[in-house]
């Protein structure tokens, strides 16, 4: 049968690669013959051959003695994929389409395997295939495909390489843990693979960042979904440990990625993961030296870095949807009707379970609140650059009053999430940290809250406290802001009812 013929050809390929080096002319001749003899001439054949090859690779893994070389076929298959991408001339189908076609077939075989085998599904051969594919692409593409003689082909391949990684990323997105829990650990190992993650982080023009954020979001969503307060399955704890190490590695190698993508990452981060949140928010641009945040002489307005506006890779304005116009109009010309429109649009149609500290459901659209707060901060910083600092460091500015109206119009839940969103912007010294520090300080001492003063102050203290009471790291902006409040003579925290009436809190605050 055709399938048997495909099996035979693939087996010969596997044997050939064990006998000669992969840059031997016989390897290229073999591939040429595969094409000439119609083994992979048409799309239909490519599909059939890919299916045969992946089935053989997985099958030979399952049948091999575990102590032997179990991945020979998978390694040979990944080498074939790379060779096919590099040596072929693409006319009817593009290189991208060709790769997607092969990966689609692999996806379907993978789906069938895990669907049929259930709990006895073994992720390893599929992991190995993609891992080897990444290793071999790295080898082929080294020094801008210097091994490719023809300059125009070389340029084609150079242009294609970022596509290669983004296509792999797209398929990894489809294999995410919520969809294929039986592949979870292989998946996390793949998104952090040494031949994938650093590459994606460093593609020119940040070409890999969108897909990376998507993949990290997939991971966080999985963790969020299955972290209920009391009964976190052990396996999910292990997932968390791995995720934490990966984020720490990213914070070390490419802090800029966390710096610029904090908004999207935090939108999907379970609120109970306090330390992980701090890890993401404490990322600082490479080579930046932080002034000591505990220094009594420190004036945030004197820190030179606070003049610089941090880059935000994904513009939160896209998440404002129907509120974009009212918010932007308010910032230009504030009016009570506009602020009311914003305040009444913050609720979701129903309750949603969420695991917070002290609450287990959410009825506000936290993503929308985060978007509004960050957007206002971005606009405020832009305004300051256009005009003067006094335009925004001003409790009468529309930037400030929009946020105050959200607090005064809102209930406890709204207030809590608005303050949380503000606290998320208190990071390394920059223009946003600087402005939001101003906002939070003034919220705290403001006399305009009337009967709601105690509640708002308590929410502010709680928000700052929960971020410094955890193990390190702590965000510079949080420490600076909290230190200022603790030292403030205008309003002694120790006299506030929610502090002095609760011995544990009084003790902690006194200690701080």
């Amino acid at each position: 049968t055709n399938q048997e013929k495909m099996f035979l050809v693939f087996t010969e390929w596997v044997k050939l690669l064990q006998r000669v080096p992969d840059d031997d002319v016989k390897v290229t001749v073999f591939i040429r013959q595969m094409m000439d003899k119609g083994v992979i001439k048409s799309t239909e054949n490519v599909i059939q051959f890919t299916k045969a090859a992946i089935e053989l690779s997985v099958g030979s893994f399952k049948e091999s003695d575990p102590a032997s070389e179990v991945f020979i076929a998978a390694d040979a298959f990944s080498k074939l994929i790379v060779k096919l991408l590099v040596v072929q001339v693409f006319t009817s189908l593009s290189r991208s389409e060709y790769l997607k076609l092969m990966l689609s077939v692999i996806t379907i075989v993978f789906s069938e395997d895990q669907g049929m085998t259930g709990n006895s599904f073994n992720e390893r051969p599929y992991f190995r295939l993609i891992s080897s594919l990444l290793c071999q692409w790295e080898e082929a593409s080294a020094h801008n495909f210097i091994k490719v003689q023809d300059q125009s082909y070389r340029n084609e391949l150079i242009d294609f390489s970022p596509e290669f990684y983004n296509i792999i990323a797209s398929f990894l997105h489809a294999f995410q843990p919520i969809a294929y829990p039986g592949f979870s650990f292989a998946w996390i190992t793949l998104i952090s693979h040494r031949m994938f993650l650093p590459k994606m982080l460093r593609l020119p023009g940040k070409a890999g960042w969108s897909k990376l954020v998507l993949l990290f979001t997939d991971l966080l969503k999985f963790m969020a979904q299955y972290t209920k307060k009391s009964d976190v399955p052990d396996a999910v704890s292990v997932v968390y440990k791995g995720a934490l190490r990966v984020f720490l590695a990213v914070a070390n190698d490419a802090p800029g990625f966390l710096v610029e993508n904090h908004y999207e990452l935090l939108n999907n981060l379970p609120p109970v993961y306090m330390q992980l949140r701090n890890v993401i928010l404490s990322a600082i641009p490479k080579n930046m030296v932080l002034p000591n945040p505990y220094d009594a002489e420190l004036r945030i307005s004197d820190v030179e870095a606070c003049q610089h506006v941090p880059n935000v890779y994904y513009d939160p304005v896209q998440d404002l949807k129907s509120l974009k116009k009212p918010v932007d109009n308010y910032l230009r010309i504030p009016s009570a009707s506009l602020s009311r429109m914003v305040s009444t649009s913050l609720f979701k149609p129903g309750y949603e379970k969420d695991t917070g500290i002290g609450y287990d459901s959410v009825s506000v659209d936290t993503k929308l609140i985060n978007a509004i707060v960050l957007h206002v901060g971005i606009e405020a910083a832009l305004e300051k650059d256009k005009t003067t600092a006094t335009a925004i460091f001003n409790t009468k500015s529309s930037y400030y009053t929009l946020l105050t109206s959200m607090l005064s119009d809102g209930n406890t839940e709204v207030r809590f999430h608005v303050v949380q969103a503000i606290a998320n912007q208190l990071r390394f010294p920059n223009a946003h940290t600087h402005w939001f520090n101003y906002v939070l300080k003034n919220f705290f001492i403001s006399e305009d809250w009337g009967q709601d003063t105690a509640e708002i102050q308590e929410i502010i203290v709680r928000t700052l406290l929960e971020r410094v009471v955890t193990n390190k790291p702590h965000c510079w902006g949080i420490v600076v802001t909290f230190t200022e409040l603790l030292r403030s003579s205008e309003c002694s925290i120790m006299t506030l009812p929610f502090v002095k009436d609760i011995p544990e809190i009084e003790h902690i605050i006194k200690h701080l």
Partner: protein
Amino acid sequence: EYSALQNPLFRPGLDYWLETKRTLLQPHDTMPAEMAAQLESSLLNCPDSLDADTPKLYQTPLSLPHPTSIFFPNETIRLVSNDPVDPSKNHQKHNDIYSRTSMGRIMSKFDLDTLFFIFYHYQGTYEQFLAARELTIRGWQFNKLNRCWFYKEVEKLPPGMEQSEEISWRYFDYQKSWLARRCGADFVYREEEFERI
């Protein structure tokens, strides 16, 4: 309904694949038993660093015939070591990704003879690359034309002499004597002949 997906090769895989989309759109609130079991199974089969290692299908024999003991193991020993890097090393290559690997560190302890052996006998390998890196760190340069490693020796002369230093070149003769030899007086250094590593 697309004709491409009518392909009988895609059944039942396609159906299973579609099922996962349903789960993505409506994730379960609490983890069902089946999912927990699959997650456990994934944990048990978790790929390790050996699974993630670079594939090697064709084992290159030693590139130049050279006697070697049958008692030497074929596998390189690559143990994980998290000893901190010595901050006193100031060569820029000391701070690259290879300086932290155990192979990179072992190479820094090898003598020149061993480094040249690895370079000439393990061509095209990671080990050859590391040997080249180590030789570069030690000041040697590779000539692309004659495939030899060269070393520039700078000798400071006592004050009062016409020149302040004397430069002589050495090269490692890998083909005949397996020794470092002085270059003749007619040796001229041409930068373009040397590999930039």
